[in-house]
């Protein structure tokens, strides 16, 4: 128990959310102010998944949200996307209060979210067509975007004819072709094998480097979080999960994923963040028994 407290102190002097740096500066791309999520369960019971927390993402900043499984990381994204209203608190996008869907955000989901009945090209083009763009122009833009993600000539394929990695590339093209200012990514490379993940991470960094969107990248992979981001937020295990750590990643850009892992700074950060995360991961796995005891 003593060890537990010590570990918490390593990553954050105080466990209160107010202790986090929260300057909702006017230039912030995303501000989540005091957001919490409470689910209403059967028989009038409530489950507070996320305690009130403050999160912000600066314009052009790549923020990784790290946490054990089931801690409400995806919930943060859904609130920023406007897919889910917070129970308390507010979301602000470039200074504007968010109500309804977030039109400035592109969302890359963890699961396959392509429309299986549309070809890769149509899947990418549809995001432009629905804005009223002429079909021929939309197709041309989609074609160019598919080429940028390395799928030149694959436009005619249907999702089931593509590999998992290729489908992710199409999904990335689908999001990027609409030129969102904010990119929300929910463990996008989670289901891929290790080599494909590495390639996809490099592709992502490469594309991001070109126009520096604000990114909220949810992951449970520590290496991925450090290698990609400017700042890592660590979330505690649920229920009432909150942010327990915040680390600036001062690795030079542009980065090469494979090389950045050998930097001493990477190892320092890795040790520090893991120290913060370890007990939370354990808690997440121990949770079912703890819940039993509580009864």
């Amino acid at each position, binding site marked *: 128990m003593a060890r537990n407290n010590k570990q918490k102190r390593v990553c954050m002097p105080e466990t209160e959310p107010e202790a986090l740096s929260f300057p909702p500066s006017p230039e912030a791309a995303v501000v989540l102010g005091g957001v919490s999520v409470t689910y209403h369960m059967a028989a009038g019971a409530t489950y507070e998944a996320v305690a009130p927390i403050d999160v912000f993402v600066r314009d052009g900043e790549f923020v990784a949200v790290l946490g054990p499984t089931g801690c409400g990381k995806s919930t943060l994204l859904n609130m920023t*996307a406007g*897919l889910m209203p917070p129970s308390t608190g507010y979301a602000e996008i470039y200074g504007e209060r968010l109500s309804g*869907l977030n*039109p400035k*955000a*592109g*969302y890359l*989901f963890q*699961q*396959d*979210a*392509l*429309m*299986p*009945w*549309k*070809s890769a090209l149509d899947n990418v083009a*549809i*995001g432009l067509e*629905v*804005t009223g763009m002429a079909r021929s122009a939309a197709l041309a833009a989609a074609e160019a975007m598919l080429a940028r993600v390395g799928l030149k000539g694959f436009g005619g394929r*249907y*999702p*089931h*004819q*593509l*590999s998992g990695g290729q489908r992710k590339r199409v999904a990335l093209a*689908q999001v990027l072709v*609409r030129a969102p200012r904010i990119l929300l990514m929910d463990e996008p490379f989670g289901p891929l094998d290790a080599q494909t993940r590495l390639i996809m991470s490099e592709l992502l960094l490469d594309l991001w480097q070109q126009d520096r969107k604000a990114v909220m990248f949810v992951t449970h992979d520590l290496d991925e979080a450090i290698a990609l981001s400017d700042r890592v937020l660590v979330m505690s295990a649920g229920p009432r999960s909150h942010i327990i750590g915040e680390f600036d990643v001062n690795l030079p850009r542009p980065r090469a994923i494979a090389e950045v892992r050998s930097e001493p700074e990477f190892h320092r950060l890795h040790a520090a963040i893991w120290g913060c995360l370890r007990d939370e991961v354990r808690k997440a796995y121990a949770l079912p028994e703890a819940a039993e005891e509580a009864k």
Partner: protein
Amino acid sequence: MARGKLLALQILVLLVFLGVWHIGSTVPFGKMENGKPFFLLPPFFFSTPGDVLARVWKMFADGSIYRHLGITLLEAMLAFAIGSIAGVLLGFAFARRPLLAAVFDPYIKMANALPRVVLAPIFALWFGLGIWSKVWLGVTLVFFIVFFNVYQGVREVPQVVLANARMLGMNERQLLRHVYWPAALSWVFSSLHTSVGFAMVGAVVGEYLGSSAGLGYLIHQAEGVFDVTGVFAGMVILTMFVMLVDIVVTHIENRLLKWKPSESKTI
């Protein structure tokens, strides 16, 4: 197994079947007490393969069958079209309006539980002995298959595909067109074999119970005069006809559902 070998074995089964039938119905197996030859399969009850084939041939040769085929096909197609359109529209409406679905749920279940054959006489009364009583019988069969498939299909669009489509900026109308509609259609097409088959059943059963033309009428007429050869000939033509329709349906299905993964293909 090689395709050729499989086909050879399948043909062998047919030949054995026809052979047994032929021998049983044409080769005498001793004599009965009254001196007449005894057959294992008396031709009066079982006819003979030769007679049946000759009758089928004759029906096509003198052209008398085409009118009946045409009428049955027309009834089945009308039943399929009307049943499908009604099924798609109502399936859509129910899936998108939960209140509607909740209110009508017990009645839909009741209607579906009713064996549709009992409706045939009442339909004959309402719509006469022409093609419409058969069409409506077919509609009651086709409708429920399409309806349940569309209902299921629209409700089971993966949440993540929907969320993604909304994040891509689709409004409600665009969601309907680009997400719900294709999802529902794919279910309609995957039930195409069943619904086309039921459309045929509706037509033939309706004709059988009271009509003046069609394959069901032919079979019923032959039965009425103990013309077993005619019954079998009608059945053979009906079977070949349904198989032909099924091939056409498979062809259409492959064209329309080319985005669907086939189970054998792995990438």
